[in-house]
C-alpha cells in the first residue's frame, strides 16, 4: 500500500473541513433558529472523529511497517525497534504527539455527541460546535506546520534514526495518552461553559452536565501526572519524583485549576452560587491545558523535557492560544455580568469552605504559573536569562498546600448554607488531638523537624477526619453499619477516596524527603559499601546484547543484617542507531522503601561510579494518585448522572 500515507494526509484535510463545518453550521443554526443546521452537529462530529482516527491509525501502520519514506517515521523509528515501541513512537515526536492530541479531542467530542441526546435541543449542538472550533485550530496547526505525513522521496533512507532511547520504555506507551486524555478532556467543560455563555443559559444545569466529564478528565490527568512522575523516577536515573520542571508544571497547573473546578461545579450545581466564577474557572482550566501544550511544544523554556523545537510552531500555537483564550474571555466579559445569584450562605456553610478551597487552589496555580513563566518575563524585559529553582516552589507551594489540606479535613463535615460552629469544633477536636500526638510519637524515632512533624500531623488529621465523617454517617442504633454504608451515594465514596489519596501521597512525600538515604560512590569489583541499613556488594559487570542496544550490566548483591535481600542489575546501555548512552536503573520496590541503583561512568580498573538510593515510602506518592483517580471516576459514575435530564 504505497498510497496509504497520502490517504492519511487526505483524511486529515477532510477532517479539518468537517471540523470547520462543525464550528460554523450549528452555531449559525443556533443564532438563526434553524433546526436543520443544528442537527448537522452530530454527524459532522462523527465524520471528523472517524477521519482523524483513520489518519492516526494509518500513521501507526506506517510505523509498524517501517515506512522510512515518511520523514517523521524515519526520524523516530528504526527497523530494530521492538514492535510495541514502534507503535508508541507514533507519539514520540512533535508531529505525532499533536496528532494524538487532536485524536483524543475527537474521541471526547464523539463520546459527547453520543451522549448528547439527554441535553436540551440547542445545547448539545452548540457544545459540539465549540469543540469544532478548537479542533479546527489544531488540525490547521498540524496541516500547516507539522504534518506527520511528509515524504522523503526519492531519497528514502535505508533505516530510521531510531526513537530517542529515553522514550523506549513502557512510560512512553502509557503516560502521554493518559495525560492527554486529561488535558484535552477539560475542553468538554470549557465547551459547556462557552455554550452556557452563548445561549445565556447560565443556570445550574450546565454545571450538572459538565460535572461527570470534568471528573473523568481530572481522573485521567491525575493518573497521567502520577505515571509521568513514576517514569521520571526510574528512567532519568536521579531517583527524584518531581523536579518542578517547566514541563511538569505545565501539567500540574491544569490539574490544580481542574481540582478547583470540580469543587466549584459542585457548589454551582447544588446551590446556584459562584456561577460566573465557575464559568471563568472552566475557561482558565482549559487555557492552562493549552498553555501547557504551548510550553512543551515550543521549547521556549530550558527543561529536561525540552526537545529540539522549531520556533515557527511556537508562534502558531501562541497565536492559537491567544485567539482561543482572548475570545473566551471577551465573551465572558460581555455575558457574565448578567448573572446574578440570589442565594446567600453563612460563614460556616459548606459554600464558604469550598470558597476557601477555590481561593487556595487558585493561589497555588498562580504561584506555579508565576514561577514557570518568570524566566520568560525576565528575558522579555531584557533583564538576563534566569531559571527559577526548585527551592522557590517548595517554599511557596508546600505551606499553601498544607493549609488547603487542613481545610480538606473540615469541609466535608459542614452542611450546605450554614453549619453550627460548635458542631465543627466538637467533631474536629478528637481527630486533631490524635493527629498531633500520633505524629509526635512517630517523631520520637526520628530527628525532630517541626515542619515535617506538622506535615505528618496534617496528613493524619485528614485521614482521621475522613474516617470520622464516614462513621458519623453509618453508625446508627436502628440499622447495621453495612446497610447504611451501602446507602451512601457513590459520589460521597468518590470524594472520600480522593481525599484519602491526598493523605496517602502526603505521607509518601514527607517520608521520601525525610528518611531517604543517598550515596554516590566509586566501586571496584568485590568492594562493599553500607548505605542506610543495607550493604551493597559490587561483583563486577558483564556484557549483554539487547535487540537494538548493547549494555554493561553491573551485578550488585544487597544484604541486610547479613541476609541476602536481592540481586540488582543496573545497566549502562549503548543504543546503536543513535550511538547514545542510557542509564537503566535497577529497582527493588517495596511498600515502605525502594532500593534504587543507577550506574554512572566506567572508571579505571573495572570500577564504576555508582549511585545508590534508599527511598522511604516513595510508592505511596503514586498510590495516592491512583486513589485520587479512582475517587474521581467513582464520583463521575454516580447514579444521578444517569437520569435523563430532559429538554
Amino acid at each position: 500500500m504505497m498510497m496509504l500515507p497520502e490517504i492519511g494526509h487526505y483524511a486529515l484535510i477532510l477532517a479539518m473541513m468537517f471540523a470547520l463545518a462543525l464550528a460554523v453550521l450549528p452555531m449559525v443554526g443556533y443564532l438563526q433558529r434553524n433546526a436543520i443546521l443544528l442537527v448537522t452537529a452530530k454527524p459532522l462530529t462523527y465524520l471528523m472523529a472517524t477521519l482523524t482516527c483513520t489518519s492516526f491509525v494509518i500513521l501507526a501502520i506506517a510505523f509498524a511497517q517501517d515506512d522510512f519514506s515518511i520523514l517523521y517515521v524515519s526520524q523516530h523509528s528504526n527497523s530494530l525497534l521492538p514492535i510495541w515501541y514502534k507503535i508508541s513512537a507514533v507519539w514520540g515526536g512533535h508531529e505525532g504527539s499533536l496528532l494524538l492530541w487532536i485524536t483524543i479531542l475527537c474521541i471526547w467530542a464523539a463520546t459527547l455527541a453520543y451522549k448528547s441526546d439527554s441535553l436540551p435541543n440547542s445545547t448539545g449542538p452548540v457544545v459540539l460546535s465549540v469543540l469544532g472550533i478548537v479542533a479546527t485550530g489544531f488540525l490547521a496547526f498540524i496541516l500547516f506546520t507539522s504534518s506527520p505525513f511528509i515524504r522523503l522521496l526519492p531519497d528514502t533512507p535505508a533505516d530510521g534514526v531510531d526513537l530517542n532511547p529515553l522514550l523506549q520504555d513502557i512510560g512512553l506507551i502509557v503516560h502521554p495518552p493518559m495525560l492527554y486524555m486529561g488535558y484535552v478532556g477539560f475542553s468538554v467543560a470549557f465547551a459547556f461553559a462557552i455554550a452556557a455563555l452563548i445561549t445565556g443559559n447560565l443556570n445550574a444545569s450546565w454545571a450538572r452536565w459538565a460535572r461527570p466529564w470534568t471528573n473523568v478528565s481530572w481522573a485521567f490527568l491525575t493518573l497521567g501526572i502520577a505515571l509521568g512522575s513514576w517514569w521520571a523516577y526510574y528512567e532519568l536515573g536521579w531517583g527524584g519524583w518531581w523536579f518542578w520542571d517547566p514541563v511538569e508544571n505545565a501539567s500540574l497547573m491544569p490539574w490544580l485549576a481542574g481540582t478547583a473546578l470540580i469543587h466549584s461545579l459542585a457548589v454551582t450545581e447544588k446551590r446556584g452560587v459562584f456561577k460566573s466564577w465557575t464559568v471563568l474557572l472552566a475557561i482558565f482550566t482549559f487555557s492552562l491545558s493549552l498553555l501547557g501544550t504551548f510550553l512543551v511544544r515550543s521549547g521556549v523554556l530550558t527543561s529536561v523535557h525540552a526537545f529540539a523545537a522549531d520556533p515557527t510552531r511556537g508562534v502558531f500555537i501562541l497565536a492559537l492560544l491567544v485567539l482561543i483564550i482572548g475570545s473566551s474571555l471577551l465573551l465572558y466579559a460581555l455575558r457574565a455580568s448578567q448573572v446574578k445569584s440570589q442565594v446567600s450562605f453563612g460563614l460556616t456553610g459548606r459554600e464558604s469552605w469550598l470558597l476557601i478551597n477555590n481561593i487556595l487552589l487558585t493561589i497555588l496555580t498562580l504561584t506555579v504559573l508565576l514561577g514557570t513563566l518568570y524566566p520568560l518575563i525576565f528575558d522579555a524585559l531584557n533583564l538576563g536569562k534566569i531559571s527559577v529553582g526548585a527551592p522557590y516552589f517548595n517554599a511557596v507551594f508546600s505551606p499553601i498546600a498544607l493549609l488547603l489540606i487542613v481545610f480538606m479535613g473540615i469541609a466535608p463535615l459542614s452542611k450546605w448554607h450554614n453549619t453550627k460552629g460548635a458542631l465543627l469544633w466538637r467533631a474536629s477536636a478528637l481527630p486533631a488531638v490524635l493527629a498531633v500526638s500520633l505524629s509526635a510519637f512517630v517523631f520520637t524515632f526520628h530527628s525532630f523537624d517541626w515542619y515535617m512533624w506538622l506535615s505528618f500531623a496534617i496528613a493524619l488529621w485528614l485521614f482521621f477526619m475522613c474516617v470520622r465523617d464516614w462513621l458519623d454517617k453509618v453508625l446508627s442504633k436502628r440499622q447495621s453499619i453495612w446497610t447504611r454504608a451501602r446507602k451512601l451515594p457513590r459520589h460521597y465514596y468518590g470524594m472520600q477516596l480522593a481525599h484519602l489519596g491526598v493523605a496517602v501521597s502526603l505521607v509518601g512525600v514527607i517520608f521520601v524527603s525525610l528518611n531517604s538515604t543517598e550515596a554516590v560512590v566509586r566501586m571496584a569489583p568485590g568492594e562493599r559499601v553500607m548505605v542506610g541499613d543495607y550493604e551493597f556488594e559490587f561483583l563486577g559487570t558483564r556484557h549483554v546484547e539487547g535487540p537494538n542496544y548493547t549494555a554493561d550490566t553491573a551485578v550488585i548483591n544487597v544484604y541486610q543484617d547479613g541476609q541476602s535481600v536481592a540481586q540488582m542489575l543496573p545497566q549502562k546501555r549503548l543504543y546503536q542507531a543513535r550511538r547514545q548512552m542510557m542509564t537503566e536503573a535497577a529497582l527493588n520496590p517495596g511498600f515502605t522503601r525502594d532500593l534504587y541503583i543507577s550506574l554512572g561512568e566506567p572508571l579505571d580498573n573495572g570500577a564504576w561510579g555508582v549511585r545508590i538510593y534508599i527511598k522511604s515510602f516513595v510508592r505511596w506518592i503514586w498510590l495516592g494518585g491512583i486513589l485520587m483517580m479512582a475517587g474521581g471516576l467513582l464520583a463521575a459514575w454516580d447514579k444521578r448522572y444517569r437520569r435523563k435530564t430532559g429538554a
Partner: protein
Amino acid sequence: MHPVRKKRIVTISVILVVLATAIGLVMYALSQNINLFYSPTQVEAGEAPQGVTLRAGGMVVENSVERASDSLNVAFLVTDYKHSLRIEYKGILPDLFREGQGIVAQGKLDERGVLIASEVLAKHDEEYMPPEVSAALEQSKAQ
C-alpha cells in the same frame, strides 16, 4: 451594619489577607531563588558574582574532561569560542554529557573563577541545545 454587607466585607478581607500573604511569600521566595545565567565571556569579565548560585554554560571543549582516578571528581572546560570557563563537579554526569556538546551547569563561582557545580543539566535529545547556550554563542559571535 447590614448582615449581607458585613459578610461581604469579611469575605473580601479574608481574600485580601490570604492574597497579600501569598504575594509576600512568593516575592520573597522568588528573590531568593532565581539563578541568572552567565556566559564564559561574562564570567571572564567579572560580571558574575562569587558565592551565589547561578547558571553558566557553553560548549564542552574537546579533550578538556579530567577525571580523578580514585573519586568521582570531574573537571572540564566550557567555551563560547571567545573565552572558556572551568567547571568542577563531584558526581555522575548525565548520559548525554559529551565533549563538543552544549551544556548548562548550576553552582557557585569560587575565588579562582571556577564554577563548582552542584548540578549539570541533563537533556533528552541530542539535537537539543539549551536556549541560553545558543544565545551566548550568538552573542560571542556577534562581538
